[in-house]
């Protein structure tokens, strides 16, 4: 497991928040990534602009790690087998769309707007995430 990194977490968080501000100020839409992802893979009028948002999401890390920090690879550690990745991905896709948002749509935009629904949604997905990790740890899947 990892060390607590409050400074980089806060700086990264503020940058994410400013992106949400820019997007809302200019387009009038809230930057919820699960909704943007759904539009990008569906036949909607927002398909192209939302696909471009997702492409930007990949370009951002590539810019940082190729130009600003060229010698540091992006930290990405995953110990899971496909047995967990595939159902995990499916539940993230299904659950976020059924619940109307993810960590960005409910967690950042929703709580930022003081939406009670989003506060409940966020509390719930954090709670079930914690329970899931706890159960897997008891089963010896995570250290």
């Amino acid at each position, binding site marked *: 497991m*990892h060390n*607590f*990194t409050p400074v*980089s*977490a*806060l700086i*990264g*968080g503020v940058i*994410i*928040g*400013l992106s*949400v*501000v*820019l*997007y*809302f*100020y*200019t387009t*009038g839409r*809230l930057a919820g*990534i*699960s909704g943007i992802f*759904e539009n990008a*893979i569906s036949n909607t009028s927002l398909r192209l602009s939302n696909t*471009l948002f997702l492409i*930007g*999401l990949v*370009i951002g*890390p*590539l810019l940082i790690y190729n130009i600003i920090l060229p010698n540091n690879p*992006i930290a*990405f*550690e*995953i110990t*899971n087998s496909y047995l*967990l*990745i595939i159902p*995990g*991905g*499916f*539940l*993230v*896709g*299904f*659950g*976020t769309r*059924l*619940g*109307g948002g*993810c960590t960005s749509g409910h967690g*950042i*935009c929703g709580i930022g*707007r003081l939406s009670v629904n989003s506060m*409940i949604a966020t509390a*719930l997905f954090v709670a*079930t995430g914690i329970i*899931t990790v*706890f159960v897997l*740890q008891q089963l010896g899947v*995570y250290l």
Partner: protein
Amino acid sequence: MNDKIISLISGVIFGIGLVISGMTNPEKVLGFLSITHNWDASLIFVMGGAILAFAPFFFLLKNKEVSALGAKIELPEKQNIDNKLLIGSALFGVGWGLVGLCPGPAIAALATFDPIVIVFLVSMAAGVLAKKNIIK
């Protein structure tokens, strides 16, 4: 046209924030969800920082008729707390805990070129489309 350029730029900034915050690393996110063992509270600072940056602007802008590019301001309609919200969010949390990835970091993690990210995203797309086709 402007809408598309702005979407791309917003995505780039969002992705930079995600990678600086460390949230593109599944182990880091699982560290936050692991409250009984080596808890890493960093994710709270990521969310807190983003909310603090967004909330004041939101309340400044929310009553405007149109956005800076002249688009309609689109806010989610007020809804009752229903089973969809509760069940959907609970299921999302289970998936999040199984892998340590949510939609934003999963897409940004394509920058690592790790094939496991593609497997996750294909499964996530299947979940999105399943919901779209099964439940109105």
